[in-house]
């Protein structure tokens, strides 16, 4: 419980305050001013969140394979703050001044063209908003996003504030019995459904898998869902490479899983989670400062 409080207290909730502040500043002075302000803002968040900082250090020690220095931690916080600033532009489709390199869009388009609904597994890695900007621009079908209820409320408030009512409507909040029925209906219509498949909450069924050198609990739900629905899955990452520079990757993950019996499905699910963790690990090695889970990811107790 304690861990849950602290976890949601800083960057996540703080980011809402930061967002409002930046929304105001950037609307007055533009992106450049917002970008410059990221330095003091990052320093402030770095100084005021010792527990999150410790968690980030634990992660970076593993991802960098050497003890993280303060500048490494700053770099990660700065990347996080940058993606939040950019959300203000990306959510309203103002991508003109951005350099966005996209890989794997053809594979995504092939799934869409085939009329097969497709699940997109993301992670708290980089920017989900840039993914959405790309997916929306290149996609004739709707993209809905599955979210935990608290985040869903925050996101909805955010989109409402920016006038993105369509985005607000495209959020499927978890925690309701019929959430997955909605996912199925979206997929049946050939649409895309995105979700973040890395973070396990206390309510999730967990699988412990090797991740950056130690066992970490990850949620089985997304993989079970894919197996149950027989839906193809693609991984989706929106990596922050630098100021207004992103790299978006869509990667085939599961073509169309068979709907095996329950026992087989559980074994297949465990294997699928392990494969996802492997892929995520490779991304963390390649882009270590894009990891935005500000709690002890490997802790088996005290889930958010």
């Amino acid at each position, binding site marked *: 419980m304690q861990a849950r409080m602290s976890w949601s207290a800083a960057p996540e909730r703080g980011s809402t305050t930061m967002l409002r502040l930046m929304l105001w500043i950037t609307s007055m002075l533009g992106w450049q001013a917002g970008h410059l302000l990221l330095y003091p803002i990052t320093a402030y968040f770095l100084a005021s969140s010792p527990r999150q900082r410790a968690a980030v250090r634990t992660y970076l020690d593993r991802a960098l394979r050497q003890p993280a220095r303060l500048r490494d931690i700053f770099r990660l916080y700065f990347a996080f703050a940058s993606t939040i600033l950019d959300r203000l532009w990306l959510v309203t489709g103002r991508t003109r001044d951005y350099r966005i390199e996209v890989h794997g869009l053809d594979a995504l388009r092939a799934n869409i063209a085939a009329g097969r609904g497709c699940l997109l597994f993301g992670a708290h890695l980089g920017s989900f908003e840039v993914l959405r900007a790309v997916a929306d621009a290149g996609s004739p079908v709707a993209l809905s996003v599955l979210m935990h209820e608290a985040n869903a409320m925050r996101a909805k408030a955010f989109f409402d504030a920016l006038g993105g009512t369509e985005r607000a409507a495209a959020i499927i909040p*978890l*925690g*309701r*019995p*019929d*959430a*997955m*029925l*909605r*996912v*199925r*209906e979206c997929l049946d219509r050939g649409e895309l459904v995105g979700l973040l498949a890395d973070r396990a909450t206390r*309510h999730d*069924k967990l699988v412990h898998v090797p991740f950056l050198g130690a066992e970490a609990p990850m949620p089985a*739900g997304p993989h*079970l*869902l894919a197996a*149950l*629905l027989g839906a193809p899955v693609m991984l989706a990452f929106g990596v922050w490479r630098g100021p207004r520079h992103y790299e978006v990757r869509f990667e085939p993950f599961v073509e169309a899983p068979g709907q095996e019996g*329950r026992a087989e499905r559980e074994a297949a699910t465990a294997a699928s989670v392990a494969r996802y963790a492997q892929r995520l690990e490779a991304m963390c090695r390649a882009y270590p400062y894009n990891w935005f889970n500000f709690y002890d990811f490997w802790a088996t107790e005290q889930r958010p």
Partner: protein
Amino acid sequence: MASGHSTALPPQDALPLELDLARLIVSALSLEVEPASIAPEAPLFGEGLGLDSIDALELALAISKTFGVQLRSDDERNHQIFASLRSLAAHIEKHRTR
């Protein structure tokens, strides 16, 4: 000492369809409980039986196969329908095609 007070029991007795549904829930979700032990009025999700939304999906697939009833997300009464074994069975009774 409370054994004589069985007058409170009848409303908790499961109807035949409720028992069928309880068996379907247990088999579809591989639960380790006796179907007859699922209290008809107890919550299925969260507390109570502790099912989650993925269980709900799995259950919806099984219900559609067994009873021909399609559960959909746009039904505003879903909270009510999914509330308990009793409410779910009542919904199935009303819409079943097989």
